[in-house]
C-alpha cells in the first residue's frame, strides 16, 4: 500500500499542490495528463529525487518522506532509458543487486530468469547498450528496475519515444510482467490509450493538481471537469445558460454539457434519438481511419452551434455525405454528460 498524503512541491515558479494518492499493493496506477502538468515531478518526488515542501509518503506502512532515494526501495525508469553505457546488458540489469543488504540470491536469480524470458533479453545479455535499439534499451531498463523487487516501480513515459509497433509489444510485455510479478507500478503518460490498456486506476493530473481519480471507465464515462472531459475525448462541450435550453436538457442551473463525437448520429431523414437537430455539413476531414465531420445547426428554435462528429469511413461512404449538405443529427440521453461548474 502506497499512500501519498497532501504532497506540496515547488520547483522554481512551478507549483504542485495537495497531491493525494492511494495505491493498493500490486496495483497499476497511471498518472495521466498533458505534458508539463507536473506528473514527472510527482513521481520523482515519490522516489526522493526532488525535495518536497510538505506532505507524507508512506510505503507499506513505513514513512519514507525524508529517506534518501537509495533507502526507499522505489526504482524509476525513464523515457530515455538511461542505461549505464559502460556496462553490458547483464551488468546493467544486475546493477541494483550489489547494493542489496539481504542476500537472497535464489530470489533474485528467479527474478532474473523471469524477466529475461518475459522481455526476451536472452540474446543481448553480453552486449553494450550502445548497440541496442530503443525497444531493447527500454526492456533492459525495465528489467533493471524490477529485478530487486522494488516496493514501487515508477515509470516516466516509458513508451513515449518508441516506434508504434515496438510500443505495442512492450506495452503488452509490461502488462504480462505486472500480472506475473505483482509489482506496484505508478506510470506517467500523456497517452489515453496506454492508460486504457494498462491501468487499474487512473489519476488525472492538470496544472500541478490531481483533478480526478478512479478507474479508467469511471473517468472515461463521468469526467468531472471540463479539462477531464476534453482530455478524454469529449469534443463537443457547450455551456448552457438560457432557461429554455436548460429546460430542454432537464437542468435548473447553468451547466456544461458534453457529448463524444462518436456518439452523434447523422441521417438523411429525421431520426429517433432523444435529442435531435436539423443542420448542415460545414466541413469534412479524412483522418485515415475515421472521418471528422463538422455539423452546424440550422433550425431556428435552438441557438446556432457547431458539433464535431466521427464516422467510420465505411459508414461515411454509405451515407454519401458532402459539404453543405443538409442533414439530421442527434444523440441519446445516456451519452450526454453534465458538468456543473
Amino acid at each position, binding site marked *: 500500500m502506497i499512500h501519498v498524503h497532501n504532497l506540496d512541491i515547488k520547483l522554481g515558479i512551478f507549483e504542485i499542490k495537495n497531491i493525494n494518492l492511494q495505491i493498493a499493493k500490486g496495483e497499476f496506477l497511471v498518472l495521466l495528463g498533458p505534458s508539463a502538468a507536473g506528473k514527472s515531478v510527482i513521481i520523482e518526488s515519490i522516489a526522493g529525487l526532488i525535495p518536497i515542501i510538505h506532505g507524507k509518503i508512506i510505503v507499506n506502512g513505513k514513512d519514507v518522506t525524508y529517506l534518501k532515494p537509495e533507502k526507499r526501495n522505489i526504482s524509476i525508469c525513464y523515457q530515455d532509458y538511461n542505461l549505464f553505457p559502460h556496462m553490458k546488458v547483464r551488468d546493467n540489469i544486475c546493477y*541494483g543487486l550489489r547494493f542489496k543488504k539481504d542476500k537472497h540470491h535464489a530470489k533474485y536469480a528467479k527474478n532474473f530468469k523471469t524477466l529475461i524470458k518475459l522481455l526476451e533479453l536472452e540474446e543481448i545479455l553480453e552486449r553494450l547498450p550502445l548497440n541496442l535499439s530503443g525497444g531493447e534499451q527500454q526492456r533492459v531498463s525495465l528489467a533493471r528496475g524490477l529485478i530487486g523487487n522494488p516496493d514501487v516501480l515508477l515509470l516516466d513515459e516509458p513508451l513515449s519515444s518508441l516506434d508504434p509497433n515496438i510500443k505495442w509489444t512492450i506495452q503488452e510485455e509490461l502488462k504480462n510482467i505486472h500480472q506475473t510479478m505483482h509489482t506496484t507500478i505508478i506510470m506517467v503518460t500523456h497517452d489515453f490509450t496506454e492508460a486504457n490498456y494498462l491501468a487499474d486506476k487512473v489519476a488525472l493530473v492538470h496544472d500541478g493538481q490531481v483533478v480526478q481519480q478512479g478507474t479508467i471507465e469511471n473517468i472515461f464515462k463521468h469526467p468531472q471537469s471540463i479539462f477531464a472531459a476534453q482530455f478524454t475525448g469529449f469534443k463537443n462541450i457547450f455551456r448552457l445558460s438560457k432557461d429554455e435550453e436548460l429546460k430542454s436538457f432537464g437542468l435548473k442551473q447553468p451547466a456544461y454539457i458534453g457529448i463524444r463525437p462518436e456518439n452523434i448520429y447523422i441521417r438523411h431523414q429525421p431520426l429517433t434519438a432523444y435529442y435531435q437537430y436539423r443542420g448542415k455539413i460545414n466541413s469534412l476531414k479524412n483522418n485515415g481511419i475515421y472521418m471528422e465531420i463538422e455539423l452546424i445547426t440550422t433550425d431556428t428554435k435552438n441557438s446556432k452551434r457547431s458539433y464535431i462528429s466521427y464516422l467510420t469511413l465505411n459508414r461515411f461512404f454509405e451515407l454519401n455525405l458532402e459539404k453543405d449538405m443538409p442533414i439530421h443529427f442527434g444523440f441519446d440521453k445516456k451519452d450526454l454528460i453534465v458538468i456543473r461548474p
Partner: protein
Amino acid sequence: MLFRFKPEIIYIIAAATGIIILFFNIFPIINTFYWTDSETLIKTLFDREVLSSIWLSIKCASITTIIAFLLGIPLAYYLARHEFRLKTLIESLIDIPLVIPHTVAGICLLTVLSPRSIVGRFLEQNHIETLGTEIGIIIAMLFVSMPLLIDAAKDAFKWVPPRIENVSRSLGANQVQTFLGITFVLSWRGILSGMIITWARSISEFGAVIILAYHPMIAPTLIYERFTTYGMKYAIPANIILIIISIIIFIVLRLVSLGGKEKHDSRS
C-alpha cells in the same frame, strides 16, 4: 571524377589558413634544431643542471595537477549539477587567474606569501617556507592552471545526464557510490584531458613562478637565465631537450585519454 564537385569557398579558406597555422606552430619549433649540433645536444643531456631543472618542472607540474584534481573535482561536480543565484559570479571568480598576466599573478601571490600578510606570517610561524622553494613553484603553477581543470571537469560532468544518476540512486546506490561507479567513470576521459591541459599549463608557466621562486630553477627559468647571461647558443640545447620531453609526455597522455574511446560513449 575527383573534381566533379567544386569545393566550397569556406573550405578553401580553411585549408589555406590551416596551412598557415600549422606552419606558425611547428616551424619555430623545428627551426630551433638547426641552431645546434648533436654533440652539444648530447653534452647537454648529461648536464646535471639541465636535467634537475627539467625533473623539477615535471615533478612540480605533476603535484600541481594532483592538487588541482583533488581540490577542483568536488566543486566542478557541484557547479555542473546545480543552478543558483551567484553561480555566474562564482564561475567568473574561478576563471580570474586566466585573464591576469602571469607576472601580475606572481606579484599578487607574493603579497599574500610575504611575512607582512596574515597568511605569510602564519606560514612563517609554522616554519613553512614558500618563497624560493618547491612549494612556491607549486603555488604559482596551481594559481594559473586550476581554472582549466575545473572548467574541463565541469563540462565533462555536464555530459552525464542527471537522470542516469537518479536511476542509480533509485536502485540502491548512495551518492558516493553513484559518483564513483557511474558519473566519474563516464566523465573520466574529459577529466583526464582537463588534467593534461592543467599539467601542460603548469609546465609552461614561467612568469608567476620566477616571482615566487627563481631558485630552485624549473626548466623555463634555467633557459631564460642561460639566454640572458650567455645568449642563444647556450639556451638552445636545453630548449630542445625540454621541447622533446614535453611533446613525448603530451603524446603519451593524449593516447591514454583517447584509448578505449570506441568501447562505449556516454554521449551517444
